[in-house]
């Protein structure tokens, strides 16, 4: 637990990269970081909604709706953060966390496309010139 707390402090407050070999919970720390940024994103959207009466995330904010959306968005970011780590797409840093937290549906679609296209991607090779 201490390692997770320390990792989150380094990632979110000190903006440091957490190498997987220095913290065995790097994947979990990253996924929690994504969820946290996701939570902040929905909270920022709620503030925007209260000021401008318009939601950038397309949410109709209300007591219940906002809470449900915050939970769903953060949970989605958590999962995509985890999947991204499994596929070795992300480094454990705040920039990657912010990308996933703010735009995980886009990242999700891209990951699905990437996996579906795997057999249809020409490997970039340099086979020399004879």
């Amino acid at each position, binding site marked *: 637990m201490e390692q997770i707390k320390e990792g989150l402090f380094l990632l979110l407050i000190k903006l440091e990269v957490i190498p997987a070999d220095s913290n065995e919970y790097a994947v979990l720390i990253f996924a929690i970081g994504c969820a946290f940024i996701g939570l902040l994103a929905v909270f920022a959207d709620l503030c925007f909604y209260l000021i401008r009466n318009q939601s950038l995330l397309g949410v109709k904010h209300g007591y219940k709706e906002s809470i449900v959306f915050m939970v769903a968005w953060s949970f989605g970011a958590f999962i995509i953060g985890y999947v*991204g780590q499994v596929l070795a*797409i992300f480094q454990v840093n705040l920039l990657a966390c912010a990308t996933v937290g703010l735009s995980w549906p886009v*990242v999700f679609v891209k990951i699905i496309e990437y996996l579906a*296209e795997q057999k*249809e*991607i*020409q490997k*970039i*090779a340099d086979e020399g*010139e004879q």
Partner: protein
Amino acid sequence: MKLRELLSGRNDFENLNNIKKLITSSKKYEPSYENWKHAHELLIFSTPRQKTWLIATIKRLYCILDDVSRDAPHIAWSMSKESLVTDDKVSIEVRQHENTERTGLIDISDKHKSWLYSKNLFNTKSVEKAVIEFIEQAMIFTRRKKHDIEHGR
């Protein structure tokens, strides 16, 4: 794959003129014999993300991969006419294999194997036939035509 590659890249493919012009960057390009402006082209693979071109001059066959997730297209390989044509006939073997519903794999000689091709680009003739005819057209018929013009036939 990195996040940057997943999300970014160029917006569009390089145009055909620039693809052809790229062959001049090859160490093997011989400007005294080859003219990129008159090079023949055959698109063998096309997806929203990648295109593979075969570009042929009378002296050399180039394979160029244009991947929008990369900064620029690049020459993946090239082969000299001597390794492709003997006695005015294409001497290499071109073979295709199944891959997915939309794509197949093509071997162009024993040196360049398992290159993806798009099946929908080869509806009227097989990819093997298309590649052989393409090499013939660029390296044999073009040379003959040039020779005939030079000798006033």
